[in-house]
């Protein structure tokens, strides 16, 4: 007997069909230019609305304020769409940012309204497909805007070129693809082979990236090109979110906790950075995290003597990780060890033997095909002892705290991991040990690296593979979410995360930061305020006081805030959370402008410059190895507003001449009053002590290249201040 559609199902089907027709009509008749960034988003808008309506209609619980919300959302959507279409006519040339941000917030509002409606579904035996479809709809809704605003970058073009080669040439040799400019199929900027790409004996050029991800993307790429591949990545990301909810639900069931905690952890994981930022991008981290999440579920449920099919699946999943990227073998091995620990003796031998065979096969294939056993650029990449303790501390803290690349600054809600970690430690939860076993070997490899931050990518790239585990860490904490302190904390960090997420989605380029210690967002704030905002936030690339103060303070204060608070404050806890964020926003500019200046980094955006260039070049490899500075040419000038911390100042100028043998001189001045003329030599950085000088309140530091008799350029790393 054929299954019959319910009434709600029929309505949804009709609406979706109508939306598809409307989308086609929009495609034909939308009065926007083909290159308009809103066009693709508006074309798919009817389908997105219909899908979200269908998800609401089929939810087990009705939203309590459905009518009012629906009307309000419809009105807001209409206004935003009209603004998008008519912004040129209305003279709102700079409205792109506002309209896109409004649409993102509207989508966030709908998701927040929908999620509680699906809460009862978590009581069912299987996790509903709605928890896969909801993030998928969100990712697909954001994809056209983000994809248009940000062409493929970092490793993405190389994965796409490999996919292109697989689908069009049926091989992995990229020599003809580079020569033929096949990158034009998905981007405008030309690309060349990467350093370390293996070469074949007949001039073949292979990619140092593995084939597994391109193979997965190939059908979608064949169907829809770059957009198809990105949509496939969105599918994988949504599947990851779905799997994480399944794990969180198991965790809740084991502890007899509330399903709401699992749902909240899922929401943070699926709809916030960093996963949202990676949702459409072609990196191996999301598929790897998906494999880890699936493996974790399997390993936990593993019987002592599993059937052969179960063992085969386990082995296949373990093999996928090194096939995605060899370094992920360091995640596969501990997971295999956990599995082996749970298995009986016979199964242990099978798993260990199977895994060894897989690794051996990969190594042999690499050696035969590419002449490179591990298909890596240099063996030093694997030397975990090369990094000092300082490097480990820098990278380890950096992946969480660094303003440019860390998890907490890009999505502050994840700072709840701190009280969650305390909670787990206090309860001595067993799987905290699992988390350690699985993550430590891999982190020991990537954290001491020079590019611990993951290179040219959105934040938290390397550790993204463990994000599912971190989401699980949040679950026990969210069971206490009605505590006033924790509630205020969730409101404060959540609000900040929503605003930042909107910014990252609207301006995806701002998630890519150069490894010179600067952050685009803080740069913007510094330039706007004319003060050193960045010094208030931690950077592991450019260590400063804030680099150590933030971790220490957050480790102490966040758990304290989470567990404090009187019961009678609970009703207003959310308001207190918002108030705390706004109060912090009031303090930042005042500190930036009025806290005494200690260091001036000349390359920062808040330092006004005439002529000159950054030093070294932005695209130099392993940028973190170099002290960043600014090259001041003859008659060039840099001016930094100074907050005086005393009547007199001693200055330490760290500089060097760019070219040996050419006379290079800098003039140091307080506003219009020259203080010193400094001759600078080429070679290593010189630390030049100047002063003491009386420093008038409000005067700016001015550095000028001396006149024509000193034709040499001077690179200035920084100026340090001591106030007396």
């Amino acid at each position: 007997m054929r299954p019959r559609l319910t009434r709600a199902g029929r309505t949804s089907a009709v609406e979706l069909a109508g939306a598809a027709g409307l989308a086609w009509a929009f495609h034909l008749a939308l009065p926007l230019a083909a290159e308009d960034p809103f066009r693709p988003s508006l074309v798919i808008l009817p389908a997105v609305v219909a899908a979200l309506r269908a998800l609401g209609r089929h939810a087990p619980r009705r939203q309590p304020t459905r009518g009012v919300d629906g009307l309000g959302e419809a009105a807001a959507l209409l206004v935003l769409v009209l603004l998008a279409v008519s912004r040129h006519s209305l003279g709102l040339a700079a409205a792109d940012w506002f309209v896109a941000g409004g649409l993102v917030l509207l989508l966030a509002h709908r998701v927040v309204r929908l999620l509680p409606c699906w809460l009862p579904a978590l009581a069912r035996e299987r996790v509903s497909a709605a928890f896969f479809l909801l993030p998928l709809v969100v990712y697909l809704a954001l994809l056209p805007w983000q994809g248009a605003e940000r062409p493929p970058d970092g490793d993405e073009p190389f994965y796409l070129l490999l996919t292109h080669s697989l689908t069009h040439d049926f091989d992995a040799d990229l020599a003809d693809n580079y020569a033929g400019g096949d990158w034009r199929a998905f981007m405008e900027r030309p690309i060349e082979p990467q350093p370390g790409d293996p070469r074949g004996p007949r001039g073949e050029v292979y990619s140092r990236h593995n084939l597994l991800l391109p193979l997965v993307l190939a059908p979608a790429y064949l169907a829809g090109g770059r957009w198809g591949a990105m949509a496939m990545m969105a599918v994988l990301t949504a599947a990851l979110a779905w799997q994480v909810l399944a794990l969180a639900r198991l965790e809740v069931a084991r502890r007899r906790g509330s399903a709401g905690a699992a749902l909240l952890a899922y929401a943070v994981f699926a709809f916030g950075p960093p996963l949202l930022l990676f949702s459409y991008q072609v990196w191996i981290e999301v598929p790897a995290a998906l494999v880890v999440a699936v493996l974790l579920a399997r390993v936990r449920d593993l019987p002592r003597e599993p059937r052969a099919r179960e063992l085969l699946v386990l082995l296949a999943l373990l093999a996928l990780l090194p096939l995605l990227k060899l370094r992920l073998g360091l995640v596969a091995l501990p997971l295999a060890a956990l599995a082996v620990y749970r298995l009986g003796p016979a199964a242990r031998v099978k798993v260990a033997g199977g895994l060894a065979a897989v690794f051996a096969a990969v190594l042999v294939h690499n050696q035969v095909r590419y002449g490179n056993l591990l298909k890596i650029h240099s063996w030093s990449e694997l030397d975990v002892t090369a990094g000092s303790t300082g490097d480990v501390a820098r990278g380890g803290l950096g992946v969480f705290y660094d303003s440019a690349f860390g998890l907490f600054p890009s999505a502050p809600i994840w700072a709840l991991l701190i009280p969650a970690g305390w909670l787990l430690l206090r309860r001595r939860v067993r799987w905290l040990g699992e988390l350690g076993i699985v993550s430590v070997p891999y982190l020991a490899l990537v954290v001491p690296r020079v590019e611990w931050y993951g290179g040219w990518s959105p934040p938290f790239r390397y550790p993204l593979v463990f994000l599912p585990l971190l989401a699980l860490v949040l679950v026990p904490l969210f069971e206490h979410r009605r505590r006033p302190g924790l509630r205020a904390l969730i409101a404060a960090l959540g609000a900040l995360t929503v605003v930042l997420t909107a910014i990252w989605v609207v301006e995806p380029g701002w998630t890519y930061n150069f490894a010179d210690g600067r952050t685009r967002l803080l740069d913007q704030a510094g330039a706007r305020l004319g003060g050193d905002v960045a010094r208030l936030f931690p950077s592991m690339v450019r260590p400063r006081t804030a680099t150590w103060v933030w971790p220490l303070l957050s480790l102490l204060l966040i758990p304290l805030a989470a567990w404090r608070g009187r019961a009678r404050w609970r009703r207003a806890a959310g308001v207190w959370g918002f108030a705390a964020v706004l109060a912090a926003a009031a303090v930042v500019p005042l500190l930036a402008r009025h806290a005494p200046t200690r260091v001036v980094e000349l390359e920062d955006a808040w330092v006004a410059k005439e002529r000159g260039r950054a030093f070294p070049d932005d695209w130099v490899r392993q940028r973190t190895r170099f002290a960043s500075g600014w090259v001041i040419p003859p008659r060039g000038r840099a001016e930094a507003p100074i907050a005086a911390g005393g009547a007199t100042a001693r200055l330490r100028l760290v500089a060097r001449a760019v070219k040996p043998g050419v006379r290079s001189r800098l003039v140091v001045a307080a506003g219009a009053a020259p203080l010193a003329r400094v001759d600078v030599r080429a070679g290593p950085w010189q630390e030049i002590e100047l002063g003491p000088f009386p420093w008038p309140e409000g005067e700016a530091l001015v550095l000028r290249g001396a006149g024509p008799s000193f034709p040499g350029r001077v690179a200035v790393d920084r100026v340090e201040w001591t106030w007396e």
Partner: protein
Amino acid sequence: MTRTVAQPPTDRPEPSRFVLVLAAFAAVQAFARTVAEPVGADESAFLSLLVGGVLAAIAAVAPRPAWELGWTALLAVAAIWIVGYGPHRGAVVTVVLAAGLAVAAARAGGAELMSSPGAAAALALGFQLLLRCDLLLPPLLDLRTLVSVLALPVAAGIALSVLAGRFGAPAAWAAGVAAVVLAPGWNVTVTLAVVSLAAGAALADRGLAKPLRALAAAALAVPPLWDPALGTLFVIAALTLLVEGRASWLLTAAGVAVLVFVPPARFGRELLELWALGPVLAPAVLAAPAAGRVLVLRGAFLSLVAAMLGGGAEVLASGLALAALGTRGVAEGVASAQRAWEGALALAVTALAAYPWLREEPLAAALELFGLGSRWAALAAAVGLVVALGWGLEAGRRRGRSWRPPPALAAPLVCAALALALARAVPVSVLVPISFDPVILTGERAVWFHRFAAREIAGGIVDCNLIHGTDLPVGTRVASLRLRDAEGALVGTWELLAGLDTAEWAAARPDVAGRRGFRAPDPWLAQIAPGGMFFAQRFRSRFELGEPVTAAQVAVRRDGELPADVELVIYRVELRE
């Protein structure tokens, strides 16, 4: 995931809300005091007052858990921090604040808010700040400003809650909204109109304490002192609520008598167009139930007399509010449609009256935005969407068999119709949107030009203003716009004239505006001027070519005859098919 179900409004919001408001104010003030650009600092300081005031209103109105307060504060502060200063930033902040206030009011029960004096006063205060943001320019602490910013909206809010007690919250809401969009905002005339009606209602309440009734009686003495003719009409409107029976018709006669002492200043079509604003704003009066028709008729009559006396649209406030009070008990479908219609108009008026648009007549501009520029088209739309639709739904509900439409359906239908009208009226056909940073044309650099792929052009716009152009006689040619084809041949020209197409950027500054012979067209956008004392203005000049021409280049040339120090600042040039 916590549920956020609205709790009933409370007269005593938690103190934490006002801590949040202070924190938001401090965040914007701190930004204003540190931001590098001086003009940006002045505008930020202005916005800090607007943000603080409107957030305080939201804090007082929003039901628990007051998420809209937190989000409005955060988004407004984020916009001020992130968006570059100027009209765009002002527009974003204004829209966020208006949306936050509207959401708070809607969640708190909409019209039901009128039952609470505190909430009604806070709401009135919030809209006053948006509608009359010029009051936030210095001087801030003089008596006139304090009265306008605080006393008038608070008095109006309390008066509306008194009227809500007598006529029900929906009728008081309708009266309040209709009155506040007329001026717009709570100016003395509109406030006195509402307060006098409330005084009449209070006097009619025999159970009210004597001191309060005495206070109400004293309040009725104020309007004639403010404006003898109009004030007398306000008192007559108030007494209409007090006197019953045949004697009440004597009051109508008294209204006529006012015209004997003050000769009418407005007649004919102009009078009818102004008078028609009443049913445009509160079309439900045409469907008032029998019990309310007397009030509607008297209100209509008094507003006609008031309109004949002359003055702006706010003279209708008393009569219109009186008529709106007669809608108590109107059919549910009509009431729902009326709320949606009035709400949409009020929001549009708020947006257009607020910074940076600052329209002189935002109500007319709002109707034009919906494609209802003609008063009679607006009246037809109001009657059709509110009365006919409401009645139709009522009839459907009574007679329907398989499906009975709920009366509340009227609201989304009205919104959808207005949305369609908006979509139809907003121009979307832009051929060459030429966006650039402002270009200043001087004696040395007199020409700006832009090349584009050859297209048919029928007209366009130029957004610009003048520097040092105060002394230019009206009609002086300041620049010419020239369209050329791909070969360079001239195919169309347009002249920009001082006082008609553009004017001095400081046209709103009292010393410039009061200069003899000075004239400026209606401003297009405003921006806080350096120093923060007044609004700098930019003007939009629209031009239509007789017949479309094929052009490939547009140039704007400053007129060579202008005095050397006169500069033309071009913000935008746009060509349309």
